[in-house]
């Protein structure tokens, strides 16, 4: 059974990009496996990879590619402004896999991984807090690092540094 599962995780060589569970993949820098699912196949790919042995989701974060719209991506993957990057780990096979999910700015939603990997709960809240990406199916999507009443999402590229209004205008001047 183990060999069967391993062979399913192997990239199947097709005409163009190797496909993993129907999604284009590539070997990124330092030989790291990167899979590019779309939003419809995202959950299915994560579930299939989990069955292949990638049982732990170690990291999930967002990236804002506002200043870098023409980055290299495999054929068939349309670059969008936001990306959700998921790092998976297979403890038995000692392998890692990374998923890069494109999220367009006019429809900022992504499926939540909470059902598959409950450990993504805090990470998805952080991605929501920092980038405003909404995770459908998340049990408690609230800000996690910024205060509840904060406006804006700080890690976006159009969120300038030093834009916080001065809070203590009435302070006496230093003597």
């Amino acid at each position, binding site marked *: 059974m183990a060999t069967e599962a391993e062979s399913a995780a192997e990239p199947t060589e097709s005409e163009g990009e190797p496909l993993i569970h129907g999604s284009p993949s590539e070997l*990124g820098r330092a030989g790291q496996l990167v899979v590019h699912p779309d939003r419809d196949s995202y959950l299915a790919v994560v579930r299939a990879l989990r069955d292949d042995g990638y049982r732990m989701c170690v990291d999930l974060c967002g990236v804002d590619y506002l200043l870098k719209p023409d980055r290299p991506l495999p054929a068939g993957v349309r670059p969008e402004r936001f990306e959700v990057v998921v790092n998976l780990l297979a403890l038995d096979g000692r392998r890692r896999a990374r998923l890069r999910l494109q999220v367009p700015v006019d429809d900022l939603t992504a499926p939540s991984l909470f059902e598959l990997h409950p*450990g993504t709960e805090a990470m998805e809240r952080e991605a929501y807090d*920092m980038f405003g990406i909404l995770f459908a199916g998340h049990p408690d999507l609230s800000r996690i690092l910024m205060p509840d009443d904060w406006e804006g999402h700080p890690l976006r590229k159009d969120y300038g540094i030093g834009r916080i209004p001065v809070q203590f205008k009435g302070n006496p001047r230093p003597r």
Partner: protein
Amino acid sequence: MSRTEVGLDEGRQEMQPRAGTSGIEALREMGAVLRIPHLSEEVESVPTDDDTMIINMGPQHPSTHGVLRVMMELQGEKVLRAKPVIGYLHTGMEKTGEDLTYLQGPTNVTRMDYVSPMFNELVFAMAVEALLELEMPPRATWIRMLMCELNRISSQALWLATNGMDLGAISMMIYGIRERELVLAFFEKCSGLRMNHNYIRPGGVAADLPDGWRDDVMHILDVMPGRLDEYDTLLTGQPIFQERTQDVGVITADECIALGITGPTLRSTGVEWDLRRHMPYLYYDQVDFDVIVGRYGDTFDRYAIRLNEIRESIRIVHQILDLMPAGDYRAQDKKVTPPPRGRIDESMEALIHHFKIFTEGFKVPEGEVYVAVESPRGELGCYLVSDGSAKPYRLHIRGPSFVNLQALPHMMRNGLIADAVAIISTLDPVMGEVDR
């Protein structure tokens, strides 16, 4: 699509009374999502809000290791739900990192996990070097390993100190900090700073080891084993300590893997997983050490693992002392490494070169990479995106404390408030890393 269309309502960070919490969120806060998967969304024998009380522990509570705030729903002494509320130390370090060059970067990341700063610098430097495809000279790599293992000793010693104090062994606080001081004194001699060293940088380390470093390290290695045996006398065999820690905060291997928990907490459940052994980086495949694994997944196991990891680190450092080669302490790559100080006085080109590297920085090829190392708290990862300029396009640090904190509701459920203190302590969260 708006937020309401996808059925999302921005919640609040704070724990709400049961009347205001429904369905899966309440189950999650009770830890039921993992523990009782067959339960429906309605939990039987729900106490009403009149029976229970929600109290805050923190952010200024002394046993929360910084500014962690845990909201707990209590029925008498029993914790029914718990929710960690974080963000009190959030200073936007990932945003700051996008505005610093790769050479300035370590000064920023070293402040995240301030108890084990060497690991932060290491993971950042390794990510940058992976993008640069830069080979490290052997001596630089061995120096990095030496520093990291010494840092692991000091970090676990500080954990023993704070954990002892949380459980009432006040004298342990003094002893643990005394041991940490030995290591910090050595770090100060090497890097000039006791914390936030900025010692491990992309391209090598900041400076060669100082004269007489072998004697300093040997002093630490000679003193520590005796001190560890004293801890065994003080804590390990002591009935009160055992009562307070055994069968407290139990977590299973499946729960750990589902929650993404790594480090001593994962190893305490019997899963043999240490990145140093299983996905080796630096030269960890050339040294001999054991991965300490627990059995019951309780607080006592995690204590024993951390204590024995100090012993393993001492073993590793002994081997490093034997294996340390002579040679360069940084890569001789002209694009990354500034010229030696002596050449600046005699060569105009060297001066210009030095100036360019420290003002503009060096350019890193476009790409993205994820690198992970085993910090004393678990898997410390760095996801780095470069757009080909001299500053990171996106710098994300996967802090083990941030992820491990999610185990709090599961471990605290149906425990006592007194155990809550032990459970916060056993996860060893460093709030600088949680909030970043």
